[in-house]
């Protein structure tokens, strides 16, 4: 059994995954589009959604974040009940990722030390994804 994070977007999944790949490094992600699905008379894809992302993913360390666009009309609510957290081992790693993600963000907790981390921040990025970034305290 493996547990992954899944992020949903409204038509911006491709832009988001390319942005995240720039922040976290690794291979350029590939996007499977709704328009590439085998035609199915029971599942009509609206014309405007043919270029939406059905599936894409990036790796963060040994783990995976999977992403897609919600179909037009599907319920989509940005919430405060689930967030993504990334723990770094060094401040340099934290800084490199934060430098890219820090683009039109809404900061909830500014970068600074916390009792559980030597460096920590909590923000919502320009795609609506809530991130906790932190540097593990040295034990």
């Amino acid at each position, binding site marked *: *059994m*493996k*547990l*992954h*994070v*899944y*992020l*949903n*977007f409204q038509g911006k999944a491709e832009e988001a995954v390319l942005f995240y790949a720039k922040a*976290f490094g690794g291979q350029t992600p590939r996007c499977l589009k709704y328009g590439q699905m*085998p035609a199915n008379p029971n599942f009509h894809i609206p014309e405007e959604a043919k270029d939406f992302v059905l599936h894409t993913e990036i790796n*963060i*360390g*040994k*783990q995976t*974040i*999977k992403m897609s666009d*919600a179909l037009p009309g599907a*319920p*989509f*609510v*940005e*919430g*405060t*009940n*689930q*967030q*993504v*957290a*990334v*723990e*770094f*081992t060094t401040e340099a*790693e934290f800084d490199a990722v934060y430098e890219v993600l820090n683009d039109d963000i809404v900061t909830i907790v500014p970068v600074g030390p916390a009792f559980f981390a030597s460096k920590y921040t909590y923000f919502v990025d320009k795609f*609506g*994804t*809530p991130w*906790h970034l932190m540097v593990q305290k040295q034990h």
Partner: protein
Amino acid sequence: MLLNIYLNLNGNANEAIDFYVKALGLEKPKVLRFSDLPKSPDYVIPEDMLNNVVHCNLEVHNTTIVISDSSPAGEYQEGSSVQLILQFEDFNTLKKTYDKLAFYSDILIPLTWNEHTRGFAMFKDQFGVTWQMNL
């Protein structure tokens, strides 16, 4: 670099922890509650929130789900933009986990298997968390 998932609950984190431990067959975790925090005159916790969860790590096969209740000042809004996926290697384990984890859920896509998918389901559980399962 480690990727974790944060679940923020609305006063029912204790219940959620017990439920996920049973449904996913996890080790019983340590739970830090508001009553465990050092007392501070600047941050008074209402009596009825003392048993609420400040922090709990649920270890789910190399990924950590961090569970807490919203802080007394925090706002709470159920969202659908962040979801969890459980990926299985055999159908029996998927089915057994689905039967337990989805029991009280709003089923969004019932467990299906056909020529396109070997097993897929999607549901929102009683704690407002949307899960997908696949094989």
